[in-house]
């Protein structure tokens, strides 16, 4: 013990400063954003009180929390509806994105021919496409799914395509030398090599599928009857029920954060042993 203590004392000023800074950074990473968040909520609360802002304009944070608790049944059943669309569209985006990427990877010609269509689909705002979907598709769930899918599939497609095409040249030669078939090359070389890229795309697509689902509900909500969180927000807006509006908003962001964290965890678990992005900094 004493030997270790002495060694700590022996650190020259520069090293001691570095150790201190590292310790501060470690703590600060959590404490700082938390402190700012608490400060902001406190300020929000004070502003409401100081300016005597009525609840239907800006509710105090405590009221929002209270509403979240009171309207839990209504809000969470709506959240479930939104979540269903989100996860279904994410699943379809993974199937569609990876499937198309594998198809593109089979031949440069296929990729050259079809990739521009994917881009067109991606850059056209979904809100502008929705009226068309509304005409052609009858089923409400299908409408929402299609919308969310169009928003979410592109990052997966584009990232996976990039990944499938960025295999080490020598490894490709090695497979060729060993007489690997097309399928074996895909299975044992290109798909694993594309994994980090795919997971990067998945993280983006997770958030986008939630956004897609909510936006789709918004647009659909004005025309039909949907019961997701977006329609709760519209409804609350009409009734000037600002606390519920805030509560619904809070639930949506929380969901988005959770999706991101879960996908990050999955990505970390898959890549932690071999990919640079998941390795701990050692220097």
């Amino acid at each position: 013990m004493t030997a270790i203590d002495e060694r700590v004392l022996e650190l020259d000023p520069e090293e001691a400063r570095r150790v201190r800074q590292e310790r501060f950074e470690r703590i600060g990473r959590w404490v700082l954003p938390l402190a700012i968040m608490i400060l902001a909520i406190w300020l929000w609360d004070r502003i409401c009180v100081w300016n005597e802002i009525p609840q239907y304009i800006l509710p105090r944070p405590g009221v929002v929390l209270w509403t979240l608790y009171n309207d839990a049944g209504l809000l969470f059943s709506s959240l479930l509806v939104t979540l269903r669309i989100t996860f279904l569209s994410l699943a379809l985006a993974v199937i569609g994105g990876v499937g198309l990427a594998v198809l593109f990877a089979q031949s440069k010609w296929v990729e050259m021919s079809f990739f521009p269509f994917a881009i067109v689909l991606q850059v056209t705002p979904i809100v502008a496409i929705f009226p068309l979907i509304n005409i052609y598709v009858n089923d409400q769930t299908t409408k929402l799914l299609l919308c969310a899918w169009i928003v979410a599939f592109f990052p997966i497609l584009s990232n996976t395509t990039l990944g499938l095409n960025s295999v080490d040249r020598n490894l490709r030669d090695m497979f060729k030398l060993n007489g690997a078939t097309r399928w074996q090359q895909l299975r044992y070389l290109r798909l694993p090599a594309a994994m980090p890229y795919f997971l990067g795309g998945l993280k983006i697509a997770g958030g986008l599928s939630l956004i897609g689902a909510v936006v789709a509900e918004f647009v659909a909500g004005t025309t039909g009857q949907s019961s997701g969180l977006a329609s709760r927000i519209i409804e609350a807006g009409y009734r000037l029920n600002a606390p519920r509006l805030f509560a619904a908003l809070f639930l949506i962001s929380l969901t988005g954060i959770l999706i991101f964290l879960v996908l990050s965890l999955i990505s970390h678990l898959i890549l932690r042993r071999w990919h640079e992005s998941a390795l701990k900094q050692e220097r």
Partner: protein
Amino acid sequence: MMQEKVAPAPSASGTSSTLLALRGVGKVFSNGVTALSDVDLTIREGDFLSLLGPSGCGKSTALRLIAGLSTPTSGVLDWRGGGSLDRSNIGFVFQEPTLLPWANVFDNVWLPLRLKGISRAKATPAITEMLARVHLTGFEDAVPRELSGGMKMRVSIARAMVTKPRVLLMDEPFAALDEITRFKLNNDLLELWQDERFTVVFVTHSVFESVFLSNRVVIMAARPGRVFDELAIEATYPRDEAFRTSPDYAALCRQASDVLVKAINATAGTHHDGH
């Protein structure tokens, strides 16, 4: 001992049969660069043949042609013993270890067998034996990033050898390693070669390495890439650390070095004339 020293290395004797003959082989790339021009080279069964030369002399191109990863523009590669050699009879070791970063050592060595449809259970004895041969027993579950540069290269060699190829092609395999590691791998490679008696074609730019390992050193010159000269290294195997410090070795290195300097000068001359 003395008698052995006088006798040439067994594989260097003229009695070994020809494995592959390159006749008038040339390679011109689409950008107009002549990588190889009119190469005549005979590789005998059991040879440890080094291709030594400056960068740009086409030694790696020659290796890729032999591997079948590229086809010659002119000339023929004549595989004795039945037309073109099956690719499963060729092992290739790249300059980088070129391992699958997501797979552990065992799976990396399994790969060539796996691609031939051999199951994990059936492949295990061969893999275990091969890993023991390259001194990697106990590292089966490690992934490449957990290994040192030398160990990664050992895995790469094990992977190339696990199919028991008749020819092992090596493209500057130890160039990126530190000298201590390189010496160790040199020794281990020689040991492996003496036990199994496969044929090695070894590309290097190190005079010392080529002389230490080979029974034949083929010196190449650049622009255009061509065979400049050949040296027979008539020192007996096994060669060990004692050989590395012997006057014989030093003399042979000097001899090879002189030829290499001539080859480089020939290149410079050609280059000068060309402009």
